[in-house]
């Protein structure tokens, strides 16, 4: 069944995520990124950031808390068995540090029905505890029919 375009603009409740130092290290190792900015406390303390920072793509870790409710949205009724990640766009602002508290909101910005597939895009915006932007992402998913 086609995704109803009336859901364009639908917003989801924001989620607040506290960035853990060890979670950053776990993520960095998982992506095989051994940059000392992410892994070495002493190096990080002497860096211009003064502490461990998150890799830019860590944005998808806290961003995921806004994608899950879209996937589970019974109104949208996405066919998850046929869903694939089509495109990803990330725009980075202030660097995310260990201990930051990131609040993220999301809304559906695009729905398109084609003959053999549907496309849905979700915009995710994150701010830190100072109210400053840290990341804006667009997740585009394709649902084959």
């Amino acid at each position, binding site marked *: 069944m086609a995704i109803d375009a009336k859901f364009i603009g639908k917003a989801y409740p924001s989620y607040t995520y506290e960035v853990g130092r060890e979670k950053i290290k776990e*993520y960095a190792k998982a992506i095989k990124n051994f940059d000392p900015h992410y892994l070495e406390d002493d190096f990080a303390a002497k860096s211009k950031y003064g502490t461990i920072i998150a890799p830019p*793509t860590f944005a998808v870790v806290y961003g995921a808390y806004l994608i899950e409710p879209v996937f589970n949205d019974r109104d949208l009724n996405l066919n998850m068995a046929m869903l694939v*990640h089509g*495109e990803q766009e990330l725009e980075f602002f202030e660097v995310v540090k260990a201990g930051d508290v990131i609040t993220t909101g999301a809304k559906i910005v695009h729905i398109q029905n084609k003959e053999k597939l549907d496309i849905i895009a979700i915009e995710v915006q994150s701010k830190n505890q100072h109210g400053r932007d840290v990341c804006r992402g667009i997740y585009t998913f394709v649902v084959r029919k």
Partner: protein
Amino acid sequence: MAIEKGQTFSGSEKVDKYRPIYYAGASGDFNPIHIDPEFGKMVGLGGAILQGLCTLAFASKTVTDWAGDPGKLKRLKCRFSAPVLMEDTISVQGTVTDVQSGRARIDLKVVNQNGVEVLQKVEAEVEA
């Protein structure tokens, strides 16, 4: 480092057998197509496939390693165009296409060992 139009850089990453498991644990993406080879075969993928965002993280690493400071990366986008399987080797080649108002635009080619583009339309912007 002065970034100039035409500069190139590269990197590569081997996808070891357990990479999607590590990535699932760190990211929360436990979709069975990534961690269950039997399920991957059943849905026609030929086995478990790596999370696309992990491949994008490999591409991102190539850029931030080159830039020297992760905070310089300002934008990153891609299309997920082909599955990445275990034991694949992903090669990333970046080319600076433009430098303007303090921003360098970079096109990235991200291919597997057979030259297949696993990501397409891969673009990054870094502070120049």
